[in-house]
């Protein structure tokens, strides 16, 4: 009985024996370090609030109110800022300086880069075996094709997870060095359903990373399916990245249609339910998770059907 973990070990070995994998990892680490340096030197948010921060916030609010009248486009954002500042004054929560945790939280944007790298790997994992011809040696073992497929998918997920954990830890380390970590119980304020909410900044960061991973998982699974069905990694990378970039526009374009809420990309951003302003008003968290689950099952089923049933003919 060939155990799944031995197959995963194989996939992991093949992944890290390829130079491209290392290039992606090193590039990624360099980007984060570079961004940290940029933040300290160029864009340090130096608005220091002193003893009378309450008065400073009030002045800020006045300023924003006048600005709002001049530029109505930014009204929503400014309105939220004003509400947050008022909340601080009422509840006596002093605005904190930019801490390591803010850095961690901001670095959430790098998750889309992890998606990109994971898509590349998911796209290659099956297609490359066909391109190299090694698929013929891989599938003549006493191991079911289902198991081989599973080992490949799990390996891609493990890679994505490694990158996510790496991003979080590296951001924490850099944040601590560059800005000081402060305390992880530091309250973070955000607006949900028009009301100000409080959360510890660490909890909020973890939640944001978690939500960003949903889109990652869906796109990686999609790329994996294309790789299995068409055995072509370029096609898989291309379509997955194209959809990732244009997903929101697709939803906006069809937003007046009744079926718009069934579009994958209307549901991938679970953060919209925390903010309380979903892209399509009738969406709920439960509905979105169900839709995502159905898409996920479809992608996996298609990959599986083609991979296990189709002949490996001459190349």
């Amino acid at each position, binding site marked *: *009985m*060939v155990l799944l973990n*031995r*197959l995963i*070990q*194989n996939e992991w*070995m*093949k992944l890290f*024996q*390829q*130079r491209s994998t290392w290039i992606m990892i090193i590039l990624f680490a360099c980007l984060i370090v570079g961004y940290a340096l940029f933040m300290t030197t160029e864009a340090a948010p130096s608005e220091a609030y002193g003893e009378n921060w309450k008065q400073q916030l009030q002045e800020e609010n006045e300023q924003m109110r006048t600005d709002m009248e001049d530029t109505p486009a930014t009204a929503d954002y400014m309105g939220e800022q004003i509400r947050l500042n008022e909340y601080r004054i009422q509840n006596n929560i002093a605005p904190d300086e930019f801490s390591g945790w803010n850095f961690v939280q901001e670095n959430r944007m790098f998750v889309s880069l992890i998606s990109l790298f994971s898509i590349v790997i998911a796209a290659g994992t099956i297609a490359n075996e066909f391109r*190299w*011809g*090694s698929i*013929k*040696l*891989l*599938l*003549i*073992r*006493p*191991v*079911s094709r289902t198991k081989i497929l599973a080992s490949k998918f799990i390996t891609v997920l493990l890679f994505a997870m490694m990158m996510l954990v790496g991003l979080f830890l590296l951001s924490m380390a850099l944040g601590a060095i560059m800005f000081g970590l402060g305390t992880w119980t530091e309250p973070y304020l955000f607006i949900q359903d028009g009301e100000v909410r409080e959360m510890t900044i660490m909890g909020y960061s973890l939640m944001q990373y978690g939500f960003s991973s949903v889109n990652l998982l869906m796109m990686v699974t999609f790329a994996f399916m294309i790789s299995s069905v068409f055995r072509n990694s370029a096609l898989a990378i291309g379509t997955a990245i194209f959809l990732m970039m244009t997903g929101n526009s697709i939803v906006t374009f069809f937003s007046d249609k009744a079926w718009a809420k069934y579009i994958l990309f209307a549901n991938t951003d679970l953060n919209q339910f925390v903010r309380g302003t979903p892209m399509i008003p009738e969406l709920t968290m439960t509905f979105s998770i169900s839709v995502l689950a159905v898409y996920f099952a479809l992608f996996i089923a298609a990959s599986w059907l083609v991979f296990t049933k189709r*002949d*490996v*003919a*001459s190349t």
Partner: protein
Amino acid sequence: MESIMKLQQVNKTIGSHHVIKDLSFDVYPGEVFGFLGPNGAGKTTTIRMMVGLMSMSSGDIVIDGHSIHKSRKQAMKHIGAIVENPEMYPFMSGWKNLVHFARMTDGVTTERIREVVRLVGLTNRINDKVHKYSLGMRQRLGIAQALLHRPSVLILDEPTNGLDPSGMKEIRAYIRKLAKVENVAVIVSSHILSEMEMMCDRIGVIHNGELINIQSVEEATADADMEVTIEATPISVVERVLREEVEQVMTKNDTCQVVLEKDRIPGITTRLVESNVNVYSIYTQKKTLEDQFLKVIGDGVIE
């Protein structure tokens, strides 16, 4: 003797093409079975079905009692194969490639991997990346991965393809040794008949997806006519003597050439000596399977 691999009325249809037609044959332990046919005859398709890369439209293949349909995993345990070229992972060392495939079968130890590496003579280069290997080395690494789990059937698709003459000779000797010493059934495919004659015990000829005949190499050569070249003087006397025995005599300079069965040679030699000619040499050559092969293939048209 019990067969180790049995093809039972195997058919394969791809689209509207009936690519393999009612293919049935048996392969026995310890023999080298040649699978001969022109390019496009269906050799590789048949091999792909034997190793489970392609499904059969009908029929079954049974390996050591396990149907490839019903118990594929059990059947595959007994098979080692190279399908077309031995395509390994070029970015990994030969050793890592072998470790990779060893993990996919139960009970292949590190010691066994070392043993196989020694067997194919790659010990010195096994830690080099595969993209640095020559074709011959790749072929050997391919054989190594096929042998890791001690299969009872070894399937090699065009094993001497792209090898230099010494490499070919080595592989041939090696295949024979495996069959005789380890009692492995080796199935070799090729489109080159002389290759096959040198290493196979039996040859099955396939053409346009149909098995045309199977015959043992020894049988074929015993029956076959010999081409006899006699160098002697005076040549005119020789020619006259030969004409009494056979229809066609080809005379050229001081030699005569005739085609006859092996057991008639001593008689003719005696007659020549009695006729007082000076015999310098009698040279015989087996007529190869080639004529039969070409006759079978006939037009050579691939449908």
